[in-house]
């Protein structure tokens, strides 16, 4: 298809390389160097979108990141990107995109009818209308979300790879326009480590759209010279296609570098995007400025664009967006657009509310014979899918002063002046300052080590841009102690310029809301009337107006419209613009893909996966795994298609009747050595440790200072000054941190060393009445006779030829031993034990069986049966609370609240139906519930079917539970049923505890 708007020569495009692309199902051609937006305009496609709320036809309005309208759903499947800005998408062969928020198609949009009812759905409409009945909100929401919308979230996994990189530099320069290039060049010359980041594929910034002469060179030749000199500086790194999207604390800036998005899908390989996290000593912000639209009726018609965008399309992309153009401007800069259009062959009329302008550009325009209508404004645009005519009014003293005819046109270039891009400055903590003369916010006092240069500092002439940038670089270098290089004095012809005339809202103030809409925020369909309405309804803070009208939300975050909106609000409220202020600029400057944020920390790489030295054995033997903290633990070992229930029953009975073996290597292990080790343990645990003999083990409860249980485990005295502490699997790191903290901050005088040895030792629990016989077969140097090796003691020995620490401890209530061997030899010893146990039917068991066995005995699991609000007294373990010594958390056990008798206390529950297994988390109530409010007495913490008891059992915490054994209560289920249960002791099996002492 012909590119009817393509200019024969000029621009930064390569006409020799045509590219085919698809938009809304139609096929077009563009050329290398195009953006999707410029290629569409080359094909005279202005109407590209439907607006968010009213579904009005919308066109491309800008040529950059601030684009509010031309959002597309790019590609599909694994490459799908919602809400991509056509103005930023570099065209590649085969690109395919469609408009967002238009169904079934852009031309036949079902909700285009919203335009007709627009006056009935102003700002706040949804808030006011859909408040009741409250339960209908989910339905309303579904409809509203369907109607009001942007792109659709992709449904297919993104297959691209993303990366992160950390970097440090002396000077980070943000922006590769004339200011950024000049600053980077000076800093680079001084030998500083410099990173220059620019979001475009090629450097040059505003010089890509503006004619200029620097040192007698055309602007872009100067850019090429600087670029090649930067490339020759070894400490200077230039990042293209790289958007600095966040200015964080302590001069950390985040950059998203796009590596492959400009390539055809088939040619993409490697990393798609790389996030740079740059800690910069100094930052020079050279982020440029965005042009303001003008606010008049129907200013959103396709074909209405900012003047600088029109110049960009003409000069950079070789596209003439319209042939009969009106340039509506309150300043001199847009006269360049008039000249650009004129030179490209368009008919141009300039409409300027000022009474005259003596600047160089307006003079040039007049000399070329371009018609200029002074003291005139565009008050209204007509046309449906494309602007076709504008209505003019005379403009006097800030008011419309009568009809001034109309002009037919197919393009309206508007300019309300420029807003410095202050986003990064504001994110750095700086406050913007209103510059009355320039009618824009400029950077105020710096908070972090940054300095602004160029248009983002309010310098709009090239001469001042360059000199300001050199000074910014000089200042940065001085502060960092660099010797200054010879500073350049690039010569630029200074242009005479007349001041702009602030123009925030064109039209009679008393007719706002009663004529066609005057849009302020195009993306969110916020018009001047909405701001008037918000003010009338009492929303006077700009932050409130933002939230009431939605001005400044969305993917462009108000880049285009916010300042106009603030100025309009200021006028309505009769206050100044600085009094009205700006909303908060937050990261990210432009949307960043989730992929870039996640980087490689996805799936298995999200968090470390820890496996014991027996992991492969477990896999080979069919284990299913569960995650415990970062650990993979065998959950159960199904045989012959057993389900969880059958496998666990078999494993439980094997332990109770013969012998089983559990991989307990994941238990946290902390090696404690030093003469003050006992003192430390006495502080950490509720029970006393001084008299524990060498070779003995003891169970301990650890409390926080609030008196609540936060870990438990068995600690063994290996030698006079040497202990091995075990912690819960999930609590190992927390406990070590806790101990180190006290040692370093409160008791630095204690002579104790702590070493984590969790990974160094493989630990197996050999449990069951036959465990002794199994161990005797593989260990000849330990006397396993009951009196020689009693319960809760420890021996050194050789198990299967490997030096081992063997503890006689039990978490199942059976005769049991814990075998610890160096992890590298773990599998060998495990296999020897399995072989030795074969004659007894030794059965590997997993965490589920471990849980059932310990619950049968009423042993708690910290974090399951406790939740940070459970004290030892609540657990019925007051006997473990030493009266003779102080320990962490002790005093809290004597507060009135911890002494209450109606605290939730650990109990057992037996459902009257012995087959019914209660759901964990189920709420305990006194009477069967039938809806309505019922006091909750507590909740189920652990619940299983006990194979040895052939009935269901549960542990629970229940108000005053310790004195309520024997009572009948109910557990309320989600389906409305209430299950009757008997409250009992949490010890269900072998109450006397004889089995572990045999």
């Amino acid at each position, binding site marked *: 298809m012909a590119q009817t708007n393509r200019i024969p020569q000029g621009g930064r495009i390569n006409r020799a390389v045509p590219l085919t692309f698809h938009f809304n199902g139609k096929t077009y051609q563009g050329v290398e160097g195009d953006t999707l937006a410029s290629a569409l305009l080359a094909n005279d496609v202005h109407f590209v979108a439907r607006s968010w709320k009213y579904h009005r036809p919308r066109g491309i309005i800008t040529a950059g990141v601030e684009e509010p309208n031309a959002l597309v759903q790019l590609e599909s499947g694994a490459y799908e990107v919602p809400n991509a800005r056509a103005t930023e998408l570099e065209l590649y062969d085969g690109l395919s995109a469609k408009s967002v928020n238009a169904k079934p198609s852009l031309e036949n949009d079902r909700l285009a009818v919203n335009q007709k009812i627009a006056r009935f759905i102003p700002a706040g409409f949804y808030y006011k209308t859909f408040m009741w009945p409250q339960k209908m909100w989910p339905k309303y929401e579904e409809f509203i979300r369907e109607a009001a919308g942007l792109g659709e979230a992709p449904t297919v996994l993104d297959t691209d790879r993303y990366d992160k990189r950390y970097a440090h530099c002396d000077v980070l320069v943000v922006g590769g326009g004339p200011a950024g290039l000049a600053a980077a060049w000076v800093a680079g010359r001084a030998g500083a480590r410099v990173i220059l980041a620019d979001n475009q594929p090629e450097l040059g910034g505003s010089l890509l759209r503006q004619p200029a002469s620097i040192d007698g060179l055309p602007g872009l030749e100067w850019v090429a010279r600087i670029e090649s000199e930067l490339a020759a500086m070894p400490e200077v790194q230039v990042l293209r296609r790289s958007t600095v999207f966040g200015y964080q604390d302590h001069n950390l800036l985040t950059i998203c570098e796009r590596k492959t998005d400009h390539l055809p899908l088939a040619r993409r390989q490697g990393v798609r995007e790389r996030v740079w996290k740059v*800690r910069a000593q100094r930052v020079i912000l050279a982020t440029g400025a965005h042009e303001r639209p003008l606010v008049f009726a129907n200013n959103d018609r396709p074909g209405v664009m900012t003047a600088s965008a029109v110049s960009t399309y003409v000069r950079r992309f070789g596209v003439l967006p319209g042939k009969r153009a009106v340039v509506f401007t309150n300043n001199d800069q847009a006269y360049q657009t008039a000249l650009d259009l004129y030179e490209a062959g368009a008919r141009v009329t300039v409409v300027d509310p000022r009474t005259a302008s003596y600047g160089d550009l307006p003079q040039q325009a007049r000399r070329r014979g371009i018609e200029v209508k002074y003291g005139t404004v565009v008050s209204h645009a007509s046309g449906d899918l494309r602007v076709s005519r504008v209505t003019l009014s005379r403009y006097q003293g800030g008011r419309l002063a009568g009809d001034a005819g109309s002009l037919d046109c197919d393009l309206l270039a508007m300019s309300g002046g420029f807003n410095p891009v202050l986003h990064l400055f504001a994110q750095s903590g700086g406050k913007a300052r209103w510059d009355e003369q320039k009618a824009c916010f400029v950077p105020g006092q710096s908070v972090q080590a940054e300095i602004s240069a160029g248009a983002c500092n309010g310098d709009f002439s090239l001469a001042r841009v360059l000199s300001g940038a050199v000074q910014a670089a000089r200042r940065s270098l001085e502060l960092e102690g660099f010797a200054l290089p010879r500073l350049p004095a690039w010569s630029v012809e200074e242009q005479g310029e007349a001041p702009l005339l602030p123009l925030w809202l064109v039209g009679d103030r008393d007719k706002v809301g009663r004529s066609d809409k005057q849009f302020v925020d195009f993306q969110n369909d916020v018009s001047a009337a909405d701001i008037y309405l918000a003010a009338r309804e009492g929303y006077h803070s700009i932050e409130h107006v933002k939230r009431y009208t939605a001005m400044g939300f969305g993917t462009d975050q108000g880049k285009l419209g916010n300042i106009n909106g603030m100025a309009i609000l200021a006028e309505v409220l009769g206050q100044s613009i600085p009094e009205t202020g700006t909303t908060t600029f937050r990261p990210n400057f432009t949307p960043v893909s989730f992929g870039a944020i996640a980087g490689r920390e996805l799936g298995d790489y999200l968090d470390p996966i820890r496996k014991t030295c027996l992991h492969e054995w477990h896999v080979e033997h069919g284990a299913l795994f569960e995650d415990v903290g970062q650990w993979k633990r065998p959950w159960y070992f199904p045989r012959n298609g057993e389900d969880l229930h059958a496998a666990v029953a078999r494993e439980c009975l094997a332990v109770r009747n013969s012998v089983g073996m559990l991989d307990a290597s994941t238990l946290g292990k902390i090696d404690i050595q030093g003469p003050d080790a006992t003192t430390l343990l006495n502080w950490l645990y509720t029970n006393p440790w001084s008299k524990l003999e060498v070779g003995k083990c003891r169970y301990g409860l650890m409390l926080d200072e609030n008196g609540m249980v936060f870990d438990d485990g068995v600690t063994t005295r290996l030698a006079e000054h040497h202990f091995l502490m075990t912690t819960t699997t999930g609590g190992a790191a927390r406990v070590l941190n806790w101990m180190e903290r006290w040692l370093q901050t409160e008791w630095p005088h204690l002579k104790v060393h702590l070493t984590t040895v969790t990974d160094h030792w493989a630990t197996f629990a050999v449990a069951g009445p036959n465990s002794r016989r199994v161990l005797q077969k593989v260990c000849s140097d330990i006397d396993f006779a009951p009196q020689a090796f009693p319960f809760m003691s420890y021996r050194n020995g050789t198990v299967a030829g490997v030096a081992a620490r063997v503890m006689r401890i039990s978490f199942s209530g059976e005769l049991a031993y814990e075998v610890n061997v160096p992890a590298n030899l773990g599998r060998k010893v495990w296999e020897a034990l399995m072989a030795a146990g074969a004659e007894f039917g030794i059965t590997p068991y997993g965490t589920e069986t471990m849980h059932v066995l310990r619950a049968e005995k009423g042993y708690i699991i910290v974090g399951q049966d406790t939740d940070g609000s459970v004290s030892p007294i609540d657990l019925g373990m007051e006997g473990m609370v030493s009266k003779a010594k102080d320990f962490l958390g002790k005093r809290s056990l004597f507060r009135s609240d911890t002494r209450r008798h109606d605290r939730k206390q650990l109990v057992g529950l037996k459902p009257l139906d012995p087959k019914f297994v209660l759901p964990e988390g189920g709420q305990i109530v006194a009477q069967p519930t039938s809806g309505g409010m019922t006091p909750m007495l507590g909740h189920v913490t652990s619940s299983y079917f006990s194979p040895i008891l052939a009935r269901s059992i549960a542990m629970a915490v229940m108000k005053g539970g310790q004195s309520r054994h024997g009572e009948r209560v109910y557990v309320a289920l989600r389906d409305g049923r209430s299950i009757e249960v008997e409250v009992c002791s949490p010890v269900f099996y072998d109450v006397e505890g004889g089995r572990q002492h045999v």
Partner: protein
Amino acid sequence: MLQITCPWCGARAESEFSCGGEADIVRPLESETLSDEAWGDYVFMRKNTKGVHKEQWFHASGCRRWFNAERDTVTYQFIRTYPIGAGASGDSHGAD
């Protein structure tokens, strides 16, 4: 992300550290003699300083040492970091 100067390791990214809250809270020695209120003060009550705040930091993914810092809670600037016990006159590291 803050940049924090560990007194032993130098300037490192905040992600290597964890903050332990207010510094210089001494655990009462004879806790059983304290009133509920005095004990509650020690366990629960913390300053909510606007401005320079003394706090404990832990170089968790580094040297695993605790240290003290003076940090402005408004600007997030670290005035200095120093080993615990070094106090006002101790060996300290400025923010830059």
